[in-house]
């Protein structure tokens, strides 16, 4: 048996994150209680180091470690998205943990491990590798969701996420087993090659693909596998909710697109019609149910379901442009949604006292800056031109029209109109109602200011000058579709 050559550069970002994560955990007992936040900054430094480590990684394109790991533009694009998500989440959490008196640095370790798991998923060229990444991500996220141990809702959130998440992992593993049985391999490219030869039991492959599809649909929270989302999102600590609504979702789609586009192009006409239905159902359910929500975290949970639906539309296009649009949208959505959650974190106060939409009444009169930022994020989520959300939706609908999915596009744009209602409803509260709450005691610490700034600039940049990022996502999509 040959030991495959070790190429540390090609996995450098994930390696950096893991090492820093362990370092944070080891250092924790030696740090004074009042200085635990320092470890948060250490974690942030780790994320930035990982960001820099993308350069050496990108010099080492190709497949590594017995073809387990692949470095291509697709992987690099997702590395950037995931590290941005991790960075902004840490910035949002620094003050939050202190405020909630749960300032345990394990939080940052778990976050870094979860991010490392996501990085593994986007670069996996092999189903086992996908599974490992998925589990690293999921287990860390289960704990994060229940991080407010004394809070009943947080516990409920963690338990629900854990039970249903394990179920879906089992589905995925079962699918992997079946596909191995049918094709004799778990390598994505080898599976695709095996499928081209006709001498295999195609029913088994269908079954395997179906099982994996269900598992991944659960991970990205699309209908009809979305039922867990609102409860989990509502109960989790707010920065974690923000993280879950973008990170695992993007990672899920990274795998979803990679696996199905690389391994199962032969049976594309079968699964693409399922994605079509999933997309339609998700957009309708997510947007319609979001309308009736009174809690902002639940509302954003349903909105995140709806956004997964739009990404699924791009996926259902099954084309290079579709994948490119999906990648662009994930970046746009991540920045916007993290920005929105950062504002929600600031406003929620201790123990999530103020997370009802009616608590936002009159915010604009008292805190115009925060209200204006949240308005930008909400308008971007709704898809008003000039914001990242519009560019993203435009690219998605463009790809779906190109692929001839006219009715799906029409469902998409009409549900977008529905979404205007609930996003603007928050704007109504902020600008058009009399203040009910006292906002003068709100603190906006520097870390959150940085997070908000990054999110806002990103949202406007992608909205006004999307060309450069779009070209990059197109290159990335090309490598995913060989």
């Amino acid at each position: 048996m040959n030991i495959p050559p070790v190429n540390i550069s090609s996995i450098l970002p994930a390696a950096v994150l893991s090492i820093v994560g362990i370092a944070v955990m080891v250092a924790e007992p030696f740090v004074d209680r009042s200085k635990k936040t320092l470890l948060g900054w250490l974690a942030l430094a780790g994320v930035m180091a990982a960001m820099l480590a993308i350069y050496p990684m990108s010099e080492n394109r190709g497949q590594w470690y017995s073809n387990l790991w692949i470095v291509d533009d697709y992987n690099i694009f997702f590395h950037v998205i995931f590290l941005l998500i991790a960075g902004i989440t840490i910035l949002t959490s620094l003050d939050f943990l202190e405020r909630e008196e749960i300032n345990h640095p394990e939080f940052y370790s778990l976050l870094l491990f979860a991010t490392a798991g996501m990085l593994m998923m986007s670069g996996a060229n092999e189903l086992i590798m996908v599974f490992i990444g998925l589990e690293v991500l999921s287990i860390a996220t289960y704990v994060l969701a229940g991080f407010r141990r004394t809070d009943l809702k947080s516990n409920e959130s963690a338990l629900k996420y854990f039970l249903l998440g394990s179920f879906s992992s089992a589905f995925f593993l079962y699918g992997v087993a079946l596909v191995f049985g049918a094709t004799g391999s778990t390598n994505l490219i080898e599976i695709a090659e095996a499928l081209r030869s006709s001498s295999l039991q195609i029913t088994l492959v269908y079954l395997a693909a179906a099982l994996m599809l269900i598992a991944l649909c659960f991970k990205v929270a699309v209908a009809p596998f979305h039922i867990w989302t609102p409860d989990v999102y509502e109960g989790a600590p707010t920065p974690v909710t923000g993280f879950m609504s973008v990170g695992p979702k993007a990672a899920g789609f990274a795998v979803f697109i990679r696996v199905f586009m690389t391994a199962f192009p032969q049976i594309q006409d079968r699964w693409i019609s399922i994605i079509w239905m999933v997309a339609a159902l998700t957009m309708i359910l997510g947007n319609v149910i979001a309308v009736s929500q009174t809690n902002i975290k639940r509302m954003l949970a349903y909105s995140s379901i709806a956004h997964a639906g739009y990404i699924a539309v791009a996926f259902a296009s099954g084309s290079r442009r579709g994948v490119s649009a999906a990648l662009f949208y994930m970046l746009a959505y991540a920045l916007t949604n993290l920005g929105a959650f950062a504002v929600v974190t600031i406003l929620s106060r201790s123990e999530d006292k103020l997370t009802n939409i009616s608590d936002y009444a009159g915010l604009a009169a008292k805190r115009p800056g925060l209200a204006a930022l949240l308005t930008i994020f909400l308008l971007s989520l709704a898809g008003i031109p000039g914001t990242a959300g519009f560019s993203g939706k435009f690219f998605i609908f463009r790809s779906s029209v190109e692929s001839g999915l006219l009715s799906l596009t029409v469902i998409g744009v009409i549900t977008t109109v529905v979404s205007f209602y609930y996003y603007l409803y928050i704007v109504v509260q902020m600008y058009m109602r009399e203040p009910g709450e006292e906002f003068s005691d709100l603190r906006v610490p520097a870390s959150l200011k940085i997070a908000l700034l990054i999110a806002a600039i990103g949202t406007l940049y992608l909205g006004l000058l999307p060309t450069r990022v779009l070209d990059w996502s197109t290159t990335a999509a090309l490598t995913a579709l060989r």
Partner: protein
Amino acid sequence: MDFINSNILTIVTFTPALGALLLLFFPRSRAKTARNFALIISILAFLFSLHLVAHFDSNASGFQYRTDRAWIPSFGIGYQLGIDGISLFLVLLTTLLTPLAILASTRIRDRVKEYFLFMLLLETGVVGVFCSLDLFLFYVFWEVMLVPMYFLIGVWGGERRIYAAMKFVLYTMAGSVLMLVAIIALYFLNGKATGAYTFSYELILAAIHGGKLVLEPATERFLFLAFFVAFAIKVPLFPFHTWLPDAHVEAPTAGSVLLAGVLLKMGTYGMLRFSLPLFPNMSHLFAPFITLLAVVGIIYGALVAMVQPDMKKLVAYSSVSHMGFIVLGIFSFTPQGVEGAIFQMLSHGVSTGALFLLVGVIYERRHTRLIEEFGGLAHRMPLYAAFFLIVTLSSIGLPGMNGFVGEFLVLLGTFGVNKPRGVVAAAGVILSAVYMLWMFQRVIWGEITNEKNRTLTDLVSYEKAMLIPLLFLIFWMGIYSNHFLRPMDASVARLLSQTGKREIQYAVAPALQP
């Protein structure tokens, strides 16, 4: 000079936006400075826009003052601006009404800075819509302008402002998202047919008229309807009009002025610029239905206006009626009809803008708009009464004033094509006299019956300043109509040659019937 000519539209469009950006940095306490600054910026934009008239070549039918830069090149999206005889005066109407609306907002006290910020952003959005020659850019302006209007109604509006603001946005969005789908579809159809993937309006138009891009009847029907519904909601054409009375009644005076004055024109402008030349066959095919709706709207709007107890609602419904004339003129496909429609667009902007300003004047004094609350205002406010009379007569369409020219031309154009519709529409003119004069009589004439009206004061200087330009225009447009019609000639002729009735239309028509 070349530099100015090729950038003047950018300057006119973005001067207000730049002003809005600067307003952000004004301290909250300096409300008056903020207002004066906004006023200066909007007057500046108006002065810049005068350059457009001064150097406009009335004999050229194509687009002038063109700007053409790449924006998102990989998608064939350009930053293309240009105006022709159809859009020239609409741009001017916008830049004229905005400073007047800002003047009308002198008594805004609440969150002044934000108010003027949204006013200026609105101006940028509307001017951008009239200047865009790229379908994507057009859509961006079309949507972006919703945001400031939403805030203007929702924050500074009346009792039911939130409902009205939401209704306004959702109605408009519902129409325009389908237009987005149609725009993307058109982009691909054009790309596949010609090999050039572009959102450029002129290139797509050239492909259609050069025979390179031939749309299947079913496709053309979908595209036409998707565009048309977006425009019809904006106009608003009966039966898509229900958002309008709510939005008008709840909006602050300045919001109503701009809404009626220019925002509604975006719908009819869209029909002229896009529906007719891009989809000539379907325009002809659907014209009978559309003109029927227009005529129903004319009569319905007038009848409903007649029974309104609220002056603003009355003017709002009269808009439904007047906008019906414009649509009727456009879909007559005759030079008189179309020129009349464009003229009526301007004239309605001036007259209805003035009417809303006048209603705003007494609303600010009495905080009510109910007709029954007033009566005998002529005793206390003679100048106001005189101004009101002129505007009322102009709105009815008295010869020598602006309203007459547009309606007359529209009717002229319609009679030649479809006599019954012309006759019924003409009845609308009579009805408009009924409801306008009746309102005038109840509000201005008679004895003062309500004690509260005894203390009313006549127009103050800023109110005169905002009304006099419009009164002046009422007569100018009515007497020297040719100053306004002449620059339209070439562009309208070109539009009609692009829309011209074609034989093929009759060949495909039966197949399209359900």
